[in-house]
């Protein structure tokens, strides 16, 4: 190997390198910032709207945020709500509900059409036990799939419970607490919708 370069020269090169990497990263971050925000919003929108069939709305539901009055329900809290309109008429709402799962908060997205029937229920975020309660988040979960099409007109209030509690829903094996929390949260969201349906028409749109 040839004569090693001097320590001083190396230190100067190192300092320059530090400035260059730091500067490049900062400049690049500035350049990317807008795009990152936009990309995150698009992704969030896609996740939020999976509970709505694609042809059931023609507005930007994420910009039509519902003003929810008294969002604290018996066992769950409604975090946000969005209105989907089709041809200018309210067609469906998406409610984001937070309930208490077996292990920490459980966030649900609940899509309800204008007749008070469920369009779909999806888990947005959870901390349930892998292999047990976490199966609630699997797309083909029978409990979650079974909600579609139900409403308070098709299913009486007393039936909104697990079979164990004299209701009509089959729980996920080994995850009673999680299943019960989900059924209760969905039922409460439906009841909230029925009680407040009139106020959803006059929503504040951002655009």
């Amino acid at each position, binding site marked *: *190997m040839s004569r*090693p*370069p*001097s*320590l001083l*020269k*190396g*230190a100067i*090169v*190192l300092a320059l*390198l*530090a400035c*260059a*990497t*730091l500067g*490049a*990263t900062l400049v*690049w*971050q500035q350049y*990317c910032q807008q*795009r*990152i925000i936009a*990309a*995150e919003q*698009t*992704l969030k929108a896609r996740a939020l709207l999976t509970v709505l069939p694609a042809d059931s709305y023609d507005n930007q539901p994420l910009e039509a945020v519902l003003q929810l009055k008294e969002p604290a329900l018996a066992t769950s809290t409604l975090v946000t709500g969005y209105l989907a309109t089709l041809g200018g008429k309210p067609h469906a709402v998406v409610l984001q509900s937070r309930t208490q799962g077996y292990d920490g908060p459980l966030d649900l997205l609940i899509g309800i059409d204008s007749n008070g029937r469920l369009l779909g229920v999806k888990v947005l975020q959870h901390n349930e036990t892998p*292999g047990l309660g976490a199966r609630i*988040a*699997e*797309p*083909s979960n029978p409990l979650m799939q079974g909600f579609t099409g139900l409403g308070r007109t098709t299913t009486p209030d007393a039936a909104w419970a697990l079979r164990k509690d004299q209701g009509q829903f089959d729980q996920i094996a080994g995850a009673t607490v999680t299943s019960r929390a989900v059924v209760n949260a969905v039922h409460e969201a439906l009841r909230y919708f029925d009680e407040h349906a009139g106020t959803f028409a006059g929503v504040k749109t951002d655009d």
Partner: protein
Amino acid sequence: MTRLPLFASLNLALLLGASQTLVQAASLALAMLAVLLLYSLIMLGLRRFLHPTLLDTASILLAAGIVSCLELGLRAWALEIYQGLGLYLALISLNCLLLERNVSCQSSPSLATVRPIAAYGALLLMLGLCRELLASGTLSLDVGIIRESSGLRLATLAPGGFILLGLLIAAYRSLSGDTNSPRTRKETLAP
């Protein structure tokens, strides 16, 4: 002699964490390739200006800078891939440092420095392929993380990946007729 076991063992977190699906493994392999290429190009120019004692600091700085830029770029243009890789993306910088160690063992850059990286990438892809096939029975080229497992659930978890990695290495050894016992094999690493 292959350096694969050494290179792989120091990167197990990356190898097991980001190989749940083929898409995840492939995107990580591509990201790694890009980072390592850029890193070695810049280091090639810098190395002769740097005193050997400063090399480590320089490579940490450079690797961290490149990986941060890549991370920002992925967040802006391929957010789903970024979310699939999560924190494992940052661990690519560790591979840069290992490459640096590997290069400084050699008197001149040669094929021997590239081989472990190629082997690492191949192993990553194989793991991704096997784990996805075992876990869900099918290959989906969907970018999102697969949450549902209709097959062997163990394959989606890190221990399953570890067992599979052992089997893959064993299969490679028996196929390549490598009969050296691991004990006689000497791995050299610069102190």
